[in-house]
């Protein structure tokens, strides 16, 4: 168990562990015996190891759901729901600004400078960025583009969606928590029977916007 000490600390601190955030730990977690050992260790703390459907990210779940745990989960759910729109809009904005044909996925490298430059040249992107940065989730107080972008990346890093491998370098990597976020969206769509048809043509979706 000793060798998993740092991993346990990160998990207990509420972090999501994926192949990007901790490749080594993630490989250990792929082993069922390791997972069982960690689960045994966590038992007295009323926690257990959990993962998303895809198995691309691990986190800790409550083992027994008591009233206090449910309260905490309710608050957390409401935070998640409140942050959903700004996060999803950010994903779309990044995709469009960088001219990519897919959404940012775990392992993708993002450079704030590149993002700023693209938004600077395009009035509509600039406006969307401004609106997003001043959203309470991102909470930028500045009207400077660079400062807004910086704040965006800072908040996403704080929330574990991005990782900054070198603190002195402005290069970020998308983590597996993005997968988790998308599964949350999918779950809400299915559970609430939202009229979002995954099979609909993209053109029709864009027309809706």
């Amino acid at each position, binding site marked *: 168990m000793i060798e998993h000490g740092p991993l*346990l*600390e990160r998990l*207990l*601190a*509420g972090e999501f562990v994926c192949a990007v955030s901790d490749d080594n730990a993630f490989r250990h977690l792929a082993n069922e015996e390791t997972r069982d050992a960690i689960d045994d260790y966590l038992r007295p*703390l*009323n*926690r257990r190891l*959990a993962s*998303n*459907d895809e198995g691309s990210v691990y*986190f*800790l*779940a*409550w083992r027994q*759901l008591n009233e206090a*745990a*449910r309260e*905490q*989960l*309710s608050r*957390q*759910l*409401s935070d*998640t*729901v409140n942050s*959903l*729109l700004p996060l*999803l*809009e950010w*994903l*779309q904005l990044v*995709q469009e600004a960088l001219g990519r*044909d*897919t*959404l940012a*996925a775990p392992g993708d490298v993002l450079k704030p400078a590149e993002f700023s430059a693209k938004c600077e040249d395009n009035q509509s992107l600039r406006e969307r960025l401004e609106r997003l940065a001043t959203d309470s989730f991102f909470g930028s107080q500045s009207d400077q583009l660079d400062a807004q972008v910086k704040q965006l990346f800072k908040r996403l890093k704080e929330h574990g969606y991005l990782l900054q491998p070198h603190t002195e370098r402005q290069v970020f990597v998308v983590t597996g928590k993005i997968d*988790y976020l*998308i*599964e*949350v*969206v*999918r*779950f*809400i*769509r299915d*559970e*609430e029977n*939202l*009229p*979002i*048809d*995954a*099979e*609909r043509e*993209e053109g029709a*979706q*864009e027309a*809706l*916007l």
Partner: protein
Amino acid sequence: MSELESRLLKTGAERLALLGKHAERLMQGYTRDDVPLDGLNDSALRKLLAARLLWRPDEQSGVKLAPKVRELIAEMLADETRRHVNADVAETLELVRSLVHSYREARSRGEHWRQEQQLLRLRQEVDDLNGRFADAIDSLWQRLNSDFGFVSQLSDKIRENDRAQKQIVRLLDGLALIDFDELIALVGSDGSLRKLLISQLQQRLSHHYTSLREVQRRLIELMARFRKQQARSRLISGMVAFMREHPGFVPSNYAKRSDVPALFNHAAPLHAAAAPALDRALESRVLAELLHELPTPRHATQTLESAVPALTPEDSLAAARQQALKQDVERFYLAVLDQPPAKPISALAYLYDSQLDWPDEIWLFQVISEYQGLPRSEQQAFRLHQDESPASSFNDLRLIHDVALAVAV
């Protein structure tokens, strides 16, 4: 060399040379609808048409590149958007059959030269067949390895991937048409035919088959990835659109369900805190060592005085002026005390006499406030007379013109 063969060589070489001579024009035709004809004389155009490098669908329309030339260019450029994949096995097999028959006929008649010719054609056909498979497989790998980078939209990539998969199915169908039992029966006991059509062909085709299966597997994997990405994009844009349309949307509270969905059961953070403990003798020594090893702070500790809130230079200047005014006023009070009792001194007169440069108003204000700031017992030692008048007959605001201070009797 027969006359026919030499004429064939000559014409072929002449026509191939046309490709080089009109290379730029032909390339323009490749990238556009029509081949531009400006600057091209009639005889040159006739030659190009005769060589079937160009063709004209009808009188009214422009001159177009012949399909074979287009294919050749696409092949040469590895232009994956336009490269065709076509192994056309059935026709080759027909040709092989008839060539084998005519080869055996020539052999039975002892026509050695014709036999050689048929064998050469057979070799060429088999090479062509191989070449077509190899080309097709090469084109497929190229597209796969570039992640279909020649189209930018994900939906186009999905369509291209789909097209590539269909091509593979056709190529595999083509391979399945080659029945080696039939070929064995066809070649009989002829050694050179057996080598060409059975052992060599079989070896190469099995190689193609393995490659095709591998490309197919990878294409399917890639397709799954594309589809997943596409589904994600659609899900996200759909959700964003929905949430914008319904700003008040709140999903039900999954945390209150008897069975909380796994995705939402994320336990509260727990920090594994620890503090130095001194209850174990051995460890306290280690802790003491650690304490000694603590680096000395780089900056000297700040003294208490210097830790007061910072004063701006203007503030300290104003305070100094205020202090000077206060001292001058105190000297005025001392001067009053030096006077015989009950003899008042005008504050303004003192100000002018002492040649102090305080403005009158500030001076009077400070004299009055000094008086009011005295403890009551000391206040009684002085008598302050204000020389004042109303601001106007309608305004009872009192204006102080001067004050006179005397020691009370």
